[in-house]
């Protein structure tokens, strides 16, 4: 790729980010720019969905704590669900978002090396993780602090112990209780949005996805195992399931797409965090003046509209 086109890519990405933040009325221009961007990047005709799945799972992709370090340098982590235990697959804590804003962050955390992966249970939370996150969010709500939720998990842990301690109940409880939080909630899918396991932290006033993140009801591999009886055909299932940020935007399920550095977030952590930061600050600014009742109503109405895909 020549230099001028690189510059154009960066320019377009910035513009897309800004438009998304004020997305109303800009949909047409957005589609134009995205298709131009696709052509410039030579992505026409490639299985974009599968590429995105691989980027979302890239071994060097920044995880929640990589972003947290950069967004909230004075991050103070809190632990435990006050009922059973501590789950390292979910990180919760508070700190100062640059600009002086105190925020609560809850996030699903994957590990990088083998030891870390085991410690974080491959980013698959157990019930105590979800309950810890809910507890943290309730504290934030009580003291009027905004909440940022970063989603990145292959799914909730499907194991005996998780079932015994009520995995389903923990997720269900979070879905209901998040919908009555009295402070702004901004949710960002930063990698894999693995079904209900991700969604349990996903009830936001604003829901964004990073450009290369995916959000899905079932993993492409599991879907392929059901449809084609062959889990290696995930590539085919990935495009059928419509799981990319663009797909969810078109379906009206997310509020915006946050750009990543050229080639993906793994190429430049600082820049990726900067883009995320810009989006978070803009979203929190928008909601600054909203009262608790307005926040609850706005969050409720947003999800109430979802899935208007029926005829009577």
């Amino acid at each position, binding site marked *: 790729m020549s230099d001028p086109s690189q510059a154009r890519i960066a320019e377009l990405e910035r513009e897309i980010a800004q438009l998304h933040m004020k997305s109303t009325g800009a949909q047409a221009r957005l589609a134009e720019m995205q298709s131009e961007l696709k052509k410039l990047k030579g992505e026409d005709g490639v299985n974009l969905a599968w590429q995105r799945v691989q980027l979302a799972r890239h071994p060097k992709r920044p995880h929640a704590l990589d972003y947290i370090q950069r967004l909230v340098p004075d991050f103070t982590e809190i632990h435990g669900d006050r009922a059973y235990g501590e789950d390292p697959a979910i990180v919760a804590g508070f700190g100062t978002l640059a600009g002086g804003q105190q925020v609560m962050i809850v996030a699903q955390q994957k590990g990088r090396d083998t030891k870390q992966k085991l410690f974080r249970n491959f980013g698959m939370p157990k019930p105590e993780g979800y309950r810890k996150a809910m507890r943290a969010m309730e504290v934030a709500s009580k003291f009027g602090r905004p909440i940022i939720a970063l989603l990145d998990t292959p799914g909730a842990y499907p194991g005996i112990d998780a*079932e015994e301690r*009520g995995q389903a109940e923990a997720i269900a409880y979070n879905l209901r209780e998040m919908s009555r939080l009295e402070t702004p909630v901004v949710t960002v899918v930063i990698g894999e949005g693995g079904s209900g396991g991700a969604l349990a932290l996903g009830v936001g006033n604003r829901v964004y996805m990073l450009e290369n993140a995916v959000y899905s*009801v079932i993993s492409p591999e599991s879907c392929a195992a059901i449809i084609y009886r062959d889990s290696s055909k995930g590539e085919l299932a990935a495009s059928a*399931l419509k799981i990319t940020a663009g797909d969810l935007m078109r379906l009206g399920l997310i509020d915006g797409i946050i750009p990543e550095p050229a080639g993906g977030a793994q190429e430049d952590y600082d820049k990726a965090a900067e883009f995320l930061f810009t989006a978070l600050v803009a979203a929190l600014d928008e909601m600054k003046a909203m009262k608790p009742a307005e926040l609850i109503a706005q969050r409720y109405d947003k999800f*109430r509209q979802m899935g208007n895909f*029926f005829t009577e």
Partner: protein
Amino acid sequence: MDWFKHPKKVAKVTDEERHVKTEGLWIKCDGCRQIIWRKDIEETLHCCPKCGHHFRIDARTRLKYLLDDGKWSEHDATLTSNDPLAFVDAKPYHERLASMQKALKLKDAIISASGTLHGRPVNVCSLELKFIGGSMGTVMGEAITRAIERSIADRHPLIIVSASGGARMQEGAVSLMQLVKISAALMKLDQAKVPYISVLTDPTTGGVTASFAMLGDLNIAEPGALIGFAGPRVIEQTIRQKLPEGFQRAEFVLQHGFLDAVVKRSEMRQFIATSLNFFCGPLPQ
């Protein structure tokens, strides 16, 4: 040596006749493996008269057993999915939907009903397992949300009888968001202090358990019902071990603290009526 090949006198029966004569008269119990006369179990609300095993029943039969005189009025019966993903697997999803709709005479995997239970008006959602595994897509999401809104408006208790494998894959992330939509509506029902009883039947797993099925003021289940988040096969594949007997069954879930009661089908009406008496007070005479 003629007597070796003595021609047997077999009445010539066409396949069709044979089918008619034997099909469905007898049924093998999944619990005790005994052969039962089908008429018998219809008299016992589809429970095995020998071991008490609860057979799966469809959404209509469920309503018939639950509501006074087996009668109800239906809501939102024409809601139909418009295939938001244009999903195609072995056959296109819209074709699968059409054939299911024809076979089951339902538009989707749910009947949203109003009726009375021991004289008390209630709103009941009954899920249909035979319709793509009772899976939850936009139609179920919308129908349940409307039922909740109806309960908030008329203050009639809500009962949801679940039988489902979870969110509907063929509607992708749109299905997933129905979990939030319904759970958020339940938050409003909770604030309105209208009772909600969740009845979990065999099987209730995935996104249905992880949303409305676990959020009742009371969560009750039929004996032996499979209840969980991940399906048993998924767990076996993850941990590479056989699962213990009784794992994720209603009794197991009760023991671990996530059910208020395991209630036999024959006692279900009475149990719900008693509970609603507690929540709402006795009916005015």
